[in-house]
Every structure is written in structure tokens, then in C-alpha cells.
């Protein structure tokens, strides 16, 4: 059912728009606290969007039309698979932020394939909201420094710890839009 190849990436124009326009612009207007506030807002929106669906519907895979910043291979997710992807990627991002904040190298390679959903489990929403709470608490206690050490995103540029926290917000926003597209197809 999947379209495209896992990790193949975005269309060139989208990738360049994000790399050359969005990333520099977000560095000007965003701060640690703004990014955290916006993530909390996205999590609240996701919570409202999915609360009326039963477990079976949350696990149902549907093919959506092309969505901004979503690679073709990820267009056939269920809502739970999207949440699982957000949780897996978010867990990795939190580890990267932690390492970079202490000016340490993050030794592992970051790959798109490694953050693909695997289980599509029925209770994924609970795990996702629990993780987001953990992330929120982590950022609240974070010293909010700007690291010199960076780690490259596989599609874009080298991000420092602050860039990764902004990316965490944009990533959650993009996949919230994916969830909205899935819901539209489910109805």
C-alpha cells in the first residue's frame, strides 16, 4: 500500500524551501519558550482531534493525497502510526538535544528509516501523550543554552540543540496536519 521508498525524502522544491527559507526564518522568530508553547498547543489540538475515535479507527491505515513535508512512503499511515512516528522521532530528538546541550557528540546516525512506525498498536495514543508530557517537563527544566555542537538532520542542515527544539515543533505541526488529512479520508 505504501507509495515511494522509505527515506527517499521530499520533492526538491519542498526540501529547498524548508532548508533555505523556513529553517533560517524560524531561527529569527522562535525561542525555546515559544517552541515549547507551540508544541503544547499542537498536542492539545491532536488530543481534541482523536478523542472521538475508537481503537479500531485509530489503527485504520488510509492513503492520503500529497501533504506538505510528508514523504510519499508515509502517506498511508493510520492515526496511531503517525503518533508512533512522532513518539519515536521525539524520543530521538530529546536524546540529541540532551547530548548537544552538554556539548557532547551524538554518535548515532539519524536516519528516516529508524523513526518509521512499526507496531500500529491500539494504545499508542497513551504512549504518545505520556511521552509529550515527559518532553514538556524536560524542556521546562532545560538550561536553554545554544550549543556549538550540531547534529545534521538527514534532509536539511546541521541543527544545534535549539534548532532541534524548533524542529520538534514544526515536525509535530506537520504530522498534526497529516492526522487531519487521515481523518478527512476516514469520514
Amino acid at each position: 500500500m505504501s507509495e515511494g521508498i522509505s527515506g527517499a525524502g521530499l520533492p526538491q522544491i519542498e526540501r529547498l524551501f524548508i532548508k533555505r527559507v523556513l529553517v533560517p526564518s524560524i531561527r529569527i522568530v522562535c525561542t525555546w519558550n515559544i517552541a515549547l508553547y507551540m508544541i503544547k498547543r499542537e498536542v492539545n489540538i491532536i488530543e481534541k482531534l482523536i478523542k472521538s475515535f475508537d481503537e479500531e479507527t485509530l489503527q485504520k491505515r488510509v492513503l492520503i493525497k500529497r501533504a506538505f513535508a510528508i514523504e510519499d512512503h508515509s502517506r498511508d499511515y493510520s492515526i496511531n502510526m503517525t503518533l508512533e512516528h512522532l513518539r519515536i522521532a521525539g524520543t530521538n530528538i530529546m536524546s540529541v538535544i540532551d547530548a548537544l546541550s552538554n556539548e557532547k557528540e551524538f554518535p548515532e546516525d539519524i536516519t528516516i528509516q529508524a523513526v518509521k512506525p512499526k507496531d500500529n498498536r491500539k494504545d499508542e495514543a497513551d504512549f504518545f501523550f505520556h511521552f509529550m508530557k515527559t518532553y514538556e517537563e524536560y524542556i521546562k527544566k532545560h538550561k536553554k543554552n545554544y550549543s556549538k555542537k550540531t547534529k545534521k538532520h538527514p534532509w536539511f542542515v546541521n541543527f544545534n540543540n535549539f534548532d532541534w527544539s524548533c524542529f520538534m515543533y514544526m515536525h509535530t505541526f506537520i504530522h498534526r496536519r497529516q492526522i487531519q488529512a487521515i481523518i478527512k479520508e476516514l469520514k
Partner: protein
Amino acid sequence: MSNHTGTLLRIIAIFIGLISFWFVISLFFTFLIISIIDIQFNITNILYIFGILLFIRVFYPRYIFNS
């Protein structure tokens, strides 16, 4: 409207919101500056402060085109 277009419009709206936030911050700085030095509180001066604030953000805390 397609999801793709809707996402792009929302991104523009988010940026307008964030730029407005920095405009309010520059208003605060303008108030602070006019209380210290003798300049007028007008839109030109607010826009100068706003421009300076965004210009500083280009280089600090990190040069935005640093990849």
C-alpha cells in the same frame, strides 16, 4: 482547499503571529528608549527598533544561515 495548501497558509499565519510577537517586544523597547533619550514615539521609530531587533536575531544567538 487541499491539505498541502492549507499547511502552507498555516505556516504563513504562524510566521505572521511570531513576527507580531517580536513587534510587540520592539514596542516595549521603544518605550524604554524614549524614556531614556529624547526621541518621538512614532511608527517610524518603532519600525527602526523592530528592524534592529530582527537584524540582531539574524546573527545572535546563532547566524541563521549557518549550516
